């Protein structure tokens, strides 16, 4: 496209752990002994697998309660969305928006963007490659902020333990939500952004 050479043309490969320029036929980085691949092995298949696992876990994560609250005799169960709505109705719009972004918007963006990456790479699309590269780096950056809700539930449940007066316990939903975050992080890690640019050239294995 703009004439910058690819590593493949010089028969070299980048070590992702120590940035060493390895010879193309190396299986291990000569400097740090990590496995080296020209492209992450089975990147598309593995990313699909983690992405679909994440999507499946996302359903119970939203349907099951994440928190069980007992307050002076009355008890209630909260899902992620009902927690957000409770904040919004209580007047703390800022916190409601923050939690909504971290637990709903971020995972959904990750699903959509990773899906887009996988489909466009499989179709060997040359559409907006630079922008897709940026988009991928963006979701890599924001991905782990979804852990916010898990940590909030952990802190709150550890604090509010007044037997007889008020207790808060974590519930199964938070496990699935945490797994969604882990799965989408693994999906982003197994996706090889170099595949975006391979559409310009013939197959690299």
């Amino acid at each position, binding site marked *: 496209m703009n004439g910058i050479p690819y*590593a493949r043309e010089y028969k070299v490969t980048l070590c992702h752990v*120590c940035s060493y320029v390895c010879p193309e036929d190396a299986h291990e980085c000569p400097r740090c002994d990590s496995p080296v691949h020209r492209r992450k092995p089975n990147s598309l298949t593995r990313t699909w697998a983690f992405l679909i696992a994440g999507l499946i876990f996302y359903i119970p994560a939203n349907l099951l309660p994440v928190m069980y609250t007992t307050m002076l005799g009355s008890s209630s169960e909260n899902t992620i969305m009902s927690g957000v709505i409770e904040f919004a109705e209580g007047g703390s719009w800022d916190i409601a928006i923050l939690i909504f972004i971290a637990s709903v918007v971020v995972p959904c963006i990750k699903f959509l963007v990773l899906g887009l990456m996988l489909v466009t790479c499989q179709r060997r699309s040359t559409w907006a490659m630079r922008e897709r590269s940026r988009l991928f780096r963006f979701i890599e950056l924001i991905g782990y902020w979804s*852990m916010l809700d898990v940590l909030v539930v952990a802190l709150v449940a550890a604090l509010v333990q007044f037997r007889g007066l008020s207790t808060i316990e974590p519930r199964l939903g938070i496990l699935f939500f945490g797994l969604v975050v882990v799965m989408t992080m693994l999906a982003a890690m197994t996706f090889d952004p170099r595949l975006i640019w391979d559409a310009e050239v013939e197959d690299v294995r």
Partner: protein
Amino acid sequence: MNSATPTPMTDIPHRQAHASEQPPAVAETQSRADQWIICEHCDSVYESIPLNKGEAAYCLRCAAILRRNHRLTVEQLLALSIAACILFIFANVFPVISISMQGLHNEVTLWGSVQALAQGQITLIALVAGLAIILAPALQIALLFWVLAHAHRGQIAPGFKMCMRTLEHLRPWSMLEVCLLGILVAIVKLAGMLDVHPGAGLWAMAMLMVLILLIAGKDIRRLWDELGVRPE
């Protein structure tokens, strides 16, 4: 980041290759390869050029950061990792939040919040949380201290390769900044129904988060070159 001037790198290898119309010989490639930078996001090759303080080099093809010039010396990194070690102990020993309600009092440490998740079916998520807010930062600090303390004396630490590889794999799982935001959200959440006081651990956490961002970034890879670790 301050003054991130895009420094386009020359594509000398490209021009040489085209001039000769022959791919370079493997031996020759390897000797010159030490001067090359490969973009990890698109596999473009650039010839490395020295950067000034605070400058960063960007990939011309995909706009990713190729390299940033480090502002901190090995001594400074070592000092910061010692500070991080002390702050880590404070952040874990002192409670991060304490609450009171009708004469009753309770407080929580980081470990306490991980334990709260370790109930029955959901224990798995306690492991993830424990890794993210306690184990990963602790290992990062310990390993950094180990390699930096030796690098300071110009030595390659025993187990250097393993330490550096572990640091690379730990980085995405260290989530102190998320934890800090979580503590703040929890404070606001509970403030509606009872008295909440931020604990000493919270301040230690806040400072620790900044230090981890400074010392545990990709920047640490430069130790490979600076210590002259050669491939066998």
